[in-house]
């Protein structure tokens, strides 16, 4: 899958020489693919005169690997998800943002004032947040879809037509919700049950694909597919019979954040870019494009009115809790890695 990231990695290698020299008026961004509108980057350049270079990745883990393998000192900012922010803080990969450095920090919405993954926003700012659940083609199956059974113990109509994200974190977090066990369990019986449950569930799955999670649903290749809410809204626009599920067992929540990388060659530009994204009208442009929530207050008037009523971002009363992916310690993670290998062997 991670083909796009591969191309990006090659591009990094090529630009390494060019960007290692610190220059005024430049910023090098490491960002998810298909996420930020080009017009917004152009607006940033025209307002500040700072020239933007951007490379993209397709998973938090791919970004971490690339930064660890020599990307540090190349990029100024990256956009890791919640759990990856805590990992990067733990690895000492993030620089601290001083008090008062960000003029627009006050725009952060009160409910996001003190996130668990970066208390007090010392290294990051909120970017976009949303959920990961799954969509079902209601033309194929018209029963109740708000249950994780659809993924792990599907009805006969859906067996063999399920696409999972090719991402250990997303799949195993959903599996933990399905069994009602902690995400970082140390209980052997629970772990064995998780391993066995996944072995049985795999027989019902057609494929693992993240890059084309939306495309397989739109084309009808898959009748069920794990997907992010905003991506799901785009999929529904192309195939009306798709419906985003909010399982009663719960679903995965995430928040992507712009972080200030240690050894950023253009630290001032990075701060300017973060301030730029803390302006409601600018972050609204990202939300309008990517169909996710923003984490700032005062965004409402700039948003596409349709966003407020998106079924993908308005869970029904029956929906279970939205949980962030947790970071396990090394010994526990080793067992989960083994379970994932067993799924894909």
């Amino acid at each position, binding site marked *: *899958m*991670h*083909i796009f*990231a591969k191309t990006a990695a090659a591009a990094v290698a090529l630009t390494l020489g060019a960007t290692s020299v610190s220059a005024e008026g430049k910023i090098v961004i490491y960002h998810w693919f298909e996420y930020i509108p080009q017009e917004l980057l152009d607006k940033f350049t025209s307002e500040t005169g700072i020239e933007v270079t951007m490379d993209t990745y397709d*998973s938090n*883990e*791919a970004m*971490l*690997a*690339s930064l*660890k*393998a020599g990307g540090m000192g190349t990029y100024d900012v990256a956009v890791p998800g919640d759990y990856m922010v805590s*990992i990067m803080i733990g*690895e000492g990969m993030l620089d601290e943002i001083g008090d008062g450095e960000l003029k627009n920090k006050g725009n952060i919405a009160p409910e996001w004032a003190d996130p668990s993954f970066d208390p007090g926003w010392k290294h990051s700012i909120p970017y976009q947040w949303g959920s990961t659940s799954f969509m079902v083609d209601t033309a194929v199956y018209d029963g109740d879809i708000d249950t994780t059974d659809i993924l792990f113990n599907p009805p006969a109509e859906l067996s063999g037509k399920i696409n999972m994200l*090719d*991402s*250990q*974190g997303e799949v195993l977090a959903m599996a933990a919700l399905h069994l009602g066990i902690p995400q970082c369990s140390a209980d*052997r019986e629970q*772990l*064995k049950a998780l*391993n066995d449950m996944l072995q049985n569930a*795999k027989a019902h*799955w*057609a*494929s*693992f*694909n993240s890059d*084309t999670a939306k495309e397989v649903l739109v*084309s*009808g*290749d898959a009748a069920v597919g794990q997907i992010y809410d905003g991506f799901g809204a785009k999929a529904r626009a192309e195939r009306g019979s798709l419906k985003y599920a909010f399982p009663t067992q719960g679903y995965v929540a995430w928040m992507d954040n712009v972080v200030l990388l240690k050894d950023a060659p253009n630290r001032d530009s990075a701060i300017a870019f973060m301030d730029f994204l803390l302006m409601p009208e600018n972050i609204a442009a990202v939300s309008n494009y990517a169909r996710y929530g923003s984490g700032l207050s005062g965004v409402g008037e700039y948003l596409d009115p349709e966003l407020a009523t998106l079924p993908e971002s308005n869970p029904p009363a029956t929906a279970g809790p939205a949980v962030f992916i947790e970071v396990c310690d*090394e010994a526990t*993670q*080793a*067992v*989960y*890695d*083994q*379970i*994932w*290998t*067993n799924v*894909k*062997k």
Partner: protein
Amino acid sequence: MAGAAATGGSARSNTYASARNWLLLPSWAVLCIFVLAPVAMMLVYSFLTKEFRGGVIWEFTLAAYDQFFFDRGLFGDEPARIDWTYILIFWRSIWQAGLATLLALLIGFPTAYFIATRPARTRTVWVFLITIPYWVNLLIRTVSMKFLLRDQGPLNDFLLATGLIDDPIRIINTNAAVQIGLFYSYLPFMVLPIYASVERYNFALSEAAADLYASKWTTLRRIVIPSVRPGIIAGCILVFVPSLGAFLAPDLLGGAKNFMIGSLIEEQFKGNAGNWPFGAAASMILLTLVLVILMFLARQQARADREATP
């Protein structure tokens, strides 16, 4: 082939004998920087201790190789057994690559033979036609193949329309789709070397065989194939080796349900596992396997050459 070229050029090469080492320097530099150094790095990394979430600690250990060959249960505290997981992943990849090679040979040989037996003027056109699709990036071609093969894709639509089938054939996300993808990706690597060999083949030999009452099948088996064998072996190597490490076809067409060698190694560096030494060890084992296979083929070739020139 290489031997003939070397003896032919020996008279001239004396002129440059003193400068030869210097003239080779660029090639050696390229080899060292792009081949030897990365492989040496992999070799070293495979014996280092893994760091949690990617990276290495500079302490010698055999843990990566141990993980490859031994299974200690889900929690790592059971007595060690032989671990078939990774061996099976390797076997699956070798089997896929072998099948793709065989398929490419079955289609590629007649194609090459056909082209080589056309009049000299039209041959270049045929070779040109073979290479045209390969001007497009492999990723794009693989994605296009996915569109063609899908349940509601043109292939199934066509078969349904002709009434040959009543329900769409499930091809996408199966091993058959991977086979089609690999075969399609690497076919020219089979056709071109065989074509080069067949083109040099002296067809008077086939006529002589026919005059001596050899059947067409016998002529092919005893005269043609032994003569063009270097091309066949080169073609097989050129298809087999890239198929072994392929990840595009297994991921996009096969559904990525099972690890292949390529995706297993990728997962160690870019996935959750973040186990660089294990990725390096798996790469070294793959490299060793490929080297053994190549050496075996090279010896076969050398023996064939000896038999051909008594």
